[in-house]
């Protein structure tokens, strides 16, 4: 697929292993680890060459010995750079889905299967960010930012795990191209349209994390919003307390694709995504009905929200 004008580097990169995506875990072995000198490495090599030729010419053995000792250390550092990578395996990549347009925080998990310590590992990808991969106790994790543009599945780019350890004169690197797709939610409509009217019993009152009337205080549970924490009572009790409010929860909302006729395809998706977020924020139950699939819900909570946004993200292009 490479256009011939993209330059030699592109073509060389295309030759590098792996040439297609592969499934995790991906273990680096010597067949797919590349080692080349860095720019400083070329300078260092020139320096050693000048020293050796000068010393050989003058038959000056101390100078020669020093040049060769440095050369020996340099070769050892090439070997060492290769060994830093070999045996490292990328076990998983994942990311919390984000709305399109926001950067995806790609977590790369790595593990080693031997007892040698690894240092100075770095993960990056073409034209993108880089992150350190600190290996402690045989495992490590790097978090990379990945820009997103469209909703739906995006492919993980070909990741480069590299190191210039231990002397900075050579870079050893290896590519990992996991076939794990990552989900990107649709970007919600920036304009807040009022939620459609609901149906069902409007009189039911539910305990909410937000509202006007404080109902009571209860113990903190993981996942509670920080804003709901009642700091002063918490300080008195020595344990975190959370306010709960009593509010009319309103009726279940019906988010129906068909109701939005007259709106463009992508705009409909954006509007529905926005409504899902709004309904979730208000703590109301909602049902999402999309063409050619059974309705989702009514329900609320993170899992329901994810199911709805996922369905919206994967809507076929209009």
């Amino acid at each position, binding site marked *: 697929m490479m256009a011939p004008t993209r330059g030699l580097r592109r073509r060389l990169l295309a030759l590098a292993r792996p040439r297609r995506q592969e499934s995790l875990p991906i273990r680096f072995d010597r067949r797919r680890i590349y080692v080349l000198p860095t720019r400083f490495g070329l300078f260092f090599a020139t320096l050693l060459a000048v020293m050796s030729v000068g*010393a050989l010419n*003058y*038959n000056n*053995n101390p100078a020669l010995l020093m040049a060769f000792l440095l050369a020996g250390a340099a070769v050892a550092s090439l*070997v060492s750079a290769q060994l830093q990578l070999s045996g490292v395996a990328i076990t998983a990549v994942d990311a919390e889905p984000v709305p399109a347009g926001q950067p995806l925080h790609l977590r790369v998990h790595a593990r080693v299967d031997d007892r040698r310590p690894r240092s*100075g590992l770095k993960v990056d990808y*073409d034209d993108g960010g880089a992150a350190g991969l600190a290996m402690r106790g045989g495992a490590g994790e790097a978090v990379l930012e990945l820009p997103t543009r469209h909703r739906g599945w995006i492919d993980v780019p070909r990741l480069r795990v590299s190191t210039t350890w231990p002397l*900075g004169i050579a*870079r050893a690197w290896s590519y990992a191209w996991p076939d794990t797709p990552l989900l990107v939610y649709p970007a919600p409509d920036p304009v807040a349209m009022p939620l459609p009217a609901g149906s069902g019993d409007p009189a039911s009152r539910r305990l909410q994390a937000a509202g006007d009337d404080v109902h009571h205080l209860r113990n903190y549970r993981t996942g509670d919003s920080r804003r709901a924490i009642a700091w002063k009572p918490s300080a008195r009790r020595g344990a975190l307390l959370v306010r709960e409010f009593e509010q009319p929860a309103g009726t279940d909302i019906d988010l129906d694709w068909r109701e939005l006729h007259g709106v463009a395809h992508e705009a409909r998706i954006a509007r529905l995504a926005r409504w899902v977020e709004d309904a979730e924020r208000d703590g109301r139950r909602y049902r999402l009905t999309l063409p050619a699939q059974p309705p989702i819900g009514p329900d609320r909570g993170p899992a329901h929200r994810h199911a709805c946004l996922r369905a919206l993200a994967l809507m076929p292009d209009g």
Partner: protein
Amino acid sequence: MAEHAAPPLDEASRRWALLVAAVCLAPLLLQLPGPTSLAIAATALVITGLSWRRPLSNLLRGVLAVAIVVAVSAQFRFEFGRDTGCALLGAMLALKPSETSSLRDARSLVGFALFAPFSTFLLDQGPWSLALGLTGAMLALGVLQRLAAVEGGMPPERFILPFQHALRLLLLGLPLAFAIFWLFPRIATPLWGVPGRAQAKVGLSDTMSPGDWVDLLADDSVAARARFIGPTPPKSAMYWRGPVLWEFDGRTWRRGRGGEPRPPSFVPSTRRWTYTLDVEPTDRTQLVALDLPLSVPDGARATSDYSLRTTRPMAALTRWTMTSAQPQSFDAVLDASQRLRGLALPSGHDPRTVALGRELRARLRDDRRIVDYALDWIHRDFAYSISAPVLGRDAMDDFLFRTRTGYCEHFAGAFTLLMRAAGIPTRVVTGYVGGTWNRLGGYWMIRRMDAHAWTEVWLQGRGWVRVDPTAAVAPENVYDTLDVPMAEGGLFETLQAPGGLGQVGDWLRTNWNDMVLGFDADRQSRLFSPLGLRRMDPTHLALLFGAVSSLALGLMVWLGLRGPRDRDPVLRAWHRLDRRYARRGLGRAPHEPATTWAERISKARGPDAVELRDLAARFTAARYAAGVADGASARRLVRDLGRHRPS
């Protein structure tokens, strides 16, 4: 492979880079003349101080660079020699700290700093330079390691860590480095000439005038070391011949030019002396040899008066193997041009000496009687002193008839002039006489202070005959009567002998010279002669080099693949035991405690594995129970773990 923009340098790394550059520069400064060194050191300090907060502007840096190049060159009077080049390099390195804001700057500073030990070795190959230079190089590697860690986003937790890593790399690279050092094909003839030093050390020179050897005679550094193979000549016959001086202008003796390079003819006596001569670097081409060498060694040529010149300056330690003999007759037929040069008198100088010579000829007639008479006179009326009075315009007249006090230069010069006036062809020979026996190493140290001048007179039928007028006055000063018996001694006996410490030091130096400094293409080709390989040609050498360096690389990879060793011997033995079981597919799962694993194995393998259960219990107790592990029980456990085999 996009190189990301180099991250900025942290303050600690920057300090380390500057410190290491200073350490690398230090041995070079010790080798340069004092004022130059001081100037370079001061410049380095000022530049570092000025650019501490923000880098200097490019314009200022350019001006400083030009200024310091001019200043350093001026100190060497704009003569470009090896030392000038090294001083310029030092000066450039002193300017380098003006930009140390990024990682790249720090790396290039450390890289350039590595040239400082290199140029130190070009100037001096002594043990101190070597120790300081190699230390500098090692520290530089440590800083490069530190910079790589900073680049990787993980600055070292303790400052010592990068140096440990660097040391480990050096050790890993050591087998390869030595393989290259001894087996990489050496060049027998240099690709380009070796520039000499603009400011030379004292040594034998091509000229001699009264009083200019005072520095030389006070220098007790070793000029050469001689080791005899077989018989050793008596000390009074140990005349190491150097430059032969013919021309005299009333003040200075010179080699002069003239005479075609005709090989002299001589009949050697039957006593032969074979020896090797390790000549310390002099940057000159003058080689000395005991009396007359029977053949000219490779890399040297003989002049018509049989003094040896090397084909290129001896900038590094060189070794020469020669067989010499005293001549029975030497140039028995004197050609006309040599006779003319051997009789030439300076015009308008030393009238009294010339008159005395002519009178001796008229009175005694026979050459041999004239020589004997003159030696008698010198023996009777002259005194030896290194602090000779200053001589006037007619220097030889002054010496022979007024001061009558002097040292070898005066005696040799005056005697030659007198003989020439009497019609006997005579020339001045300079070189070394004698040497100091090193008991520990069994060789002779020839020091610069052993420099000497004597004469050779041409006698009908015998040719050139050595006459040493100084020996007629003060033989003890010529031959060093403080003669230690030529016994070989052990370290302690040598230390107790007078000057013993110096002898031991010189012996260590000699061994270093033998093993490292004196190694060259010739010795490389004879590297395996003890194994029966007489000479290796470059192809063999290249093959051997390839094989050995592959082995060294393999060793490096193997060592690199090994994980860190467990510090606890008990744990080490336990892991070995675990690996033995793992080879049979019975390895311990990572989550399994030792006793649980042993339980599982012994259930599967039946009663044979009871021993394993016992071992696992003892291992657990030794590792985790307080107060159980003492030295003896731990050793027993290690032994038992080592003996156990899966049943």
